[in-house]
């Protein structure tokens, strides 16, 4: 490769990588990303749905994999979709989680699964262990 094609390739690749500069920064893509992560203004309050395991001594949070995906965001999407559709889908999710929990030794003290929707002040929750208001959407027993 002599200098001309090498220069053309260099300009094309660098130009393509920098091309997101002319796009709306919120218009993300792959692999030519605007890299907008960590840039958006976020409230400190978070409303979301999640399953919890009830034990004789209190609640336990489960794991994304038990919910249905190793990825946190995909696990969240699974719960949110079931909650928004309700009915059979929510029951199926709860029972599937309960069936999985029944097979995991470190969750042997969990007797019931509850699908909750809650709104928490993130810093209060993490720093001061203060929970926000929660609503129970569905519950099902863990059968062993």
């Amino acid at each position, binding site marked *: 490769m002599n200098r001309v094609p090498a220069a053309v*390739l260099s300009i094309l690749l*660098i130009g393509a990588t920098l091309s997101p500069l002319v796009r709306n920064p919120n218009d*993300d893509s792959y692999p030519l990303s605007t890299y907008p992560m960590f840039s958006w203004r976020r409230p400190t309050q978070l409303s979301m749905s999640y399953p919890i395991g009830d034990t004789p001594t209190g609640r336990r949070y489960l794991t994304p994999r038990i919910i249905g995906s190793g990825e*946190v965001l995909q696990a969240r999407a699974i719960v949110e979709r079931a909650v928004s559709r309700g009915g059979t889908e929510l029951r199926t999710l709860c029972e599937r989680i309960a069936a999985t929990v029944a097979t995991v030794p470190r969750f042997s003290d969990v007797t019931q699964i509850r699908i909750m929707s809650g709104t928490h002040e993130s810093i209060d929750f993490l720093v001061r262990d203060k929970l926000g208001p929660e609503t129970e959407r569905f519950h099902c027993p863990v059968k062993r």
Partner: protein
Amino acid sequence: MKRIADWWFAPAPAERLAALRVVIGLYALVYLWRRFGEFLNVANLPVSQFQGVGLTKWSGPLPASAIAVMLVVTIIALIAFVAGALYRYAAPIAALGLLFVTTYRNSWGMVFHTENLLVLHIVALAFAPAADVWSIDARYRAPRPHAGYGWAIKLVVALTAATYMLAGIAKLRIAGFGWVDGALLRNQIAIDNLRKVLLGDSKAVLATPFLEHPSFFTAFCALTLMLELGAGITLVGGWPARIWALAVWGFHLGVVLLMNIWFIYPLSFVAFLPVFPVEKVILRAQEWRRRRRG
């Protein structure tokens, strides 16, 4: 113009570019090999969840079997890429394959930002004379005349710099200079960790102690912006580029400790090797082996 061209095409050892081909190619190969199942699982998700980005906007969803074939072809091409075998043909196939399969993984409603730089590096190396030494090709044919090796190494470095600069510019475009006060990042870290706790994932080790001290985030944000917007310094080369690389590696470590988000490619340090004389390690190892054999 001539000065820019002379700088861009300044000579560099063939071994340096070859070492980058081997190390970055090997990283991509192991990455894809270890995530083969995960890439296939994603291809089996319901089509209703498909949201094309980049290349997959045109291709649309494909049968899982097609993705499996593409993964196998890409892995074989990456083996040839690392070995420097039939490089002229195998390397572009590896680059295109890696681009497509990672794009496909990013086409299900969530664009990750962990594979972009790796793909850009592989694409740049695929079209560079990176198999003139330390390769199977080099045993059977003499290198064709070309523009040298320095430009290709600079191109890989420039792509690294561009991605970090874009991340810095995005913060200013979306949030403005107010991003530096740290409140936005603190909220982001708090929300991200809360989401993890509620779904039972591990909370970042340093999240809670630092959330209690908001002033820390101002310093962290100022440093982040300085490193991202100052990424162009890598093109100067030498110790400024190496200090930048070490500082950015430290920044990624900070992201792990505060958010438990792992950007594996930069954390492995492979992404920053282009600013180091990486071939010297291999040459010294060869020299040491030669001396031991007498």
